[in-house]
């Protein structure tokens, strides 16, 4: 009985009802733009602040400077040292997160309504006027170096580093944003000041705000928080030249399970075939348990706990990647299965049923993302950075629905290049 019921529901899957997400574009008196969702039901505000560029802006010879600089933002400002700053944020129960990656510096903040102005004044000090004291620099540098030493013995990190080197070569994407033991050891306070000026400027600023604050209140708040940042920062690097040739690259490392990554050229978000490629990836390796790779590698053969593929959209490059881990004596078989599936999909494309299921998954799952103030703020800031229109959320599922099985078949043939699928394997793989 239950199966009949399920089938019935599956056939008539409609996009579930939406919570209305009413995004307002706010421009402060000082000219700072933000996207805002007013959500007064819980007395706090979530802010997501991003500066485009991130660790890829590191100056020549100062690899790791942006990463270390971001780690020092909460370690001293004005007459406050790291301890004083931490105590002040604890007293306000404000939550500040500072992070950096290859395309952005990101600041995530959650502040209570009852002390919002004080909390944001504290956050401002760390963003606008960090002091980079030498003792803090030395202390946090040791933490970064400890992480880098660990990365050199972590098979996942080794695989990621080797793959980045193969794909991106000398471009900033080709090396770790945390820097190397050599480069980080030599970073100075002057490097921190320069990295701060270069990375955190208003010409690359994007803001998403969700919570207990009105559009009228937000304008002056933005000016007070971010208005004193410099107008312009360091020049952006040019696009990475990606031309993946394929092959299997083995990095010898003594561990029982091999970690494998794979990659080929990707597709741009602005490409008219992007949504067809997105549906394609869901079917091939992106859709969790339902993907072909998961079915063939894990469910049918038990070769791995998980296998995934993902379209990587970076600001300066597009690639199509995946990963799998298998015991040293089984990883060659896992790779062979992946290569076969890649070739099969390129040659024949998916079935009508697979496309319908993938579209149902993607359109049904999309509204589930908007389930909290912090989550919505993050989505809004990403949309701005990717130059999406403010009504994108309401049109996105239509774009998925418009994809046809013919589209996906054609894109599978054009996009997938099984002969140019590059593998990096870290471990003691047998037969490779």
């Amino acid at each position, binding site marked *: 009985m239950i199966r009949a019921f399920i089938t019935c529901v599956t056939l008539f899957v409609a996009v579930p009802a939406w919570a209305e997400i009413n995004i307002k574009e706010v421009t402060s008196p000082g000219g700072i733009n933000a996207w805002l969702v007013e959500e007064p039901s819980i007395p706090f505000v979530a802010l997501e602040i991003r500066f485009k560029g991130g660790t890829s802006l590191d100056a020549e010879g100062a690899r790791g400077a942006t990463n270390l600089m971001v780690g020092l933002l909460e370690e001293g400002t004005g007459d406050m040292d790291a301890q004083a700053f931490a105590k002040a944020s604890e007293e306000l129960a404000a939550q500040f997160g500072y992070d950096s990656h290859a395309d952005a510096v990101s600041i995530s903040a959650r502040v209570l309504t009852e002390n919002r102005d004080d909390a944001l004044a504290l956050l401002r000090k760390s963003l606008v006027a960090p002091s980079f004291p030498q003792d803090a620099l030395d202390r946090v540098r040791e933490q970064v170096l400890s992480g880098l030493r660990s990365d050199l013995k972590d098979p996942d990190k080794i695989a990621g580093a080797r793959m980045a080197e193969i794909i991106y070569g000398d471009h900033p994407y080709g090396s770790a944003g945390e820097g190397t033991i050599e480069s980080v050891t030599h970073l100075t306070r002057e490097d921190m000041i320069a990295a701060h000026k270069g990375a955190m400027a208003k010409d690359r600023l994007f803001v998403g705000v969700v919570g207990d604050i009105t559009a009228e209140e937000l304008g002056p708040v933005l000016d007070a928080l971010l208005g004193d940042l410099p107008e312009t920062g360091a020049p952006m690097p040019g696009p990475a030249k990606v031309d993946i040739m394929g092959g299997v690259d083995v990095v010898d490392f003594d561990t029982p399970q091999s970690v494998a990554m794979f990659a080929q050229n990707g597709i741009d978000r602005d490409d008219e075939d992007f949504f067809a490629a997105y549906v394609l990836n869901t079917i091939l390796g992106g859709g969790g348990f339902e993907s072909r790779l998961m079915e063939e590698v894990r469910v049918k053969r038990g070769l791995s706990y998980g296998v995934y593929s993902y379209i990587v959209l970076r600001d300066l490059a597009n690639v199509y990647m995946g990963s799998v881990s298998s015991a040293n004596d089984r990883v060659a078989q896992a790779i062979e299965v992946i290569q076969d599936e890649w070739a099969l999909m390129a040659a024949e494309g998916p079935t009508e049923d697979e496309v319908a299921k993938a579209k149902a998954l993607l359109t049904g799952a999309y509204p589930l993302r908007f389930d*909290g103030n912090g989550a919505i703020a993050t989505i809004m800031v990403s949309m701005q950075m990717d130059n999406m229109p403010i009504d994108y959320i309401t049109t996105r599922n239509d774009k998925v629905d418009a994809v046809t099985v013919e589209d996906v078949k054609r894109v599978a043939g054009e996009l997938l290049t099984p002969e140019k699928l590059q593998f990096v394997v870290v471990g003691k793989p047998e037969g490779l």
Partner: protein
Amino acid sequence: MLRRFVCALATGAAMALPAQAEDQVTDFMLENGMQVVVVEDHRAPVVMHMVWYKAGSADEKPGVSGVAHFLEHLLFKATDKLESGEFSATVAANGGRDNAFTSYDVTAYHQRVAADRLELMMSMESDRMVNIRLGEEEILTERDVIIEERNQRVENNPGALFREQLNAAQYLNHRYGIPIIGWRHEMEALGLEDALDYYGTYYAPNNAILIVAGDVEPEEVKALAEQYYGVIPANPDLPERARPSEPPQTSARRMEFYDARVAQPYVTRSYLAPERNPGDQRGAAALTLLAELLGGGQTSVLSQKLQFEDKNSIYATAWYRGTSLDATTFNLLTVPAPGIGMQEAEDAMDAVVAEFMETGVDEAHLERIKMQLRASQIYERDNVDSVANRYGRGLTSGLTIADIQAWPEILQSITPEEIMAAAEMIFDRKKSVTGWLLTEEEAAQ
């Protein structure tokens, strides 16, 4: 309400304790003994549907370690009504995501879907509570999967191998000393009968808790729960959850773990510690605050002394997880700075604790921690899944709804004296396990 008011006054709080968090929660019991908790959040048309079984790896029989987790995997295979894999495929076809997890005290299954798909989730989840149908061939493939999972999580990770050995040393008699995923040699021998034996013993409505969180009304959940779960008979032979307890520890245990893949050595110490118990949570609350004072971030005592003042540690912390069915641990850790030896790092960590026992609790520090705990109740309302998980963890660890709801106020009411008494009780070296994680190079020296 009065107690809450007094509490806020006593701590000098500028902010009253938020009452709203618990207002989201409704609970009731089905006639067959299945408990139901509903957490409402109507901001988005999304629901989290979870079934928590009061059975985890510590409820396994000797010799079949990993069977609780193995069975969790097998619940995604065929039932009387669903083909193998159809459960997750159906969730996905409805735009949802599903998964499951196993720990020492619980096995839980969950799906996040649009709120109007709740009935479908209940129909399938109630089905696999009692109707799985497994074939020998299929379970052998899935056994390979869990062994690869162990490879990924444990064998490839020297830190995880080290923690496995530490736990084994900490618990001589209780099954918390055996890894949740299982010892490899026992996993390799797990069979269909082992899985079905565990399933038949523990998977029943009177051993399960249904938690539904999101855009739902309690009446609607109740009607659906009665229709799908309420019709499953209770298991009259459900065993009592009485596990072997630890003998008194009379000798400090020490261990050195060497692995060539270790890049960053560290020192860790655990002390056997009492957990939260029904109607008796003050001791655990004091230990929770003690861990925050000693190890909760930049301003904590360990971090301040070892990282900031003496600079002999890159990172130092303390932690304690009080939500556990049986005795838990209180833990310390320090990562030595370059040039600092392991013994030196351990001695420095002990000296900080000894000094803390002399100087006692900094009241301003305690007040900052309590302020953050109060605020966390506001922030948590933004994440209904987190509220749902808090109830799931608590109820499967032997606590009642009343215990879970009293916990924030108990934390606020703990005095410095109670914290120091808890510290006196915990910091007994004879009842500790100390581990050094080391590289092979250090072994050669």
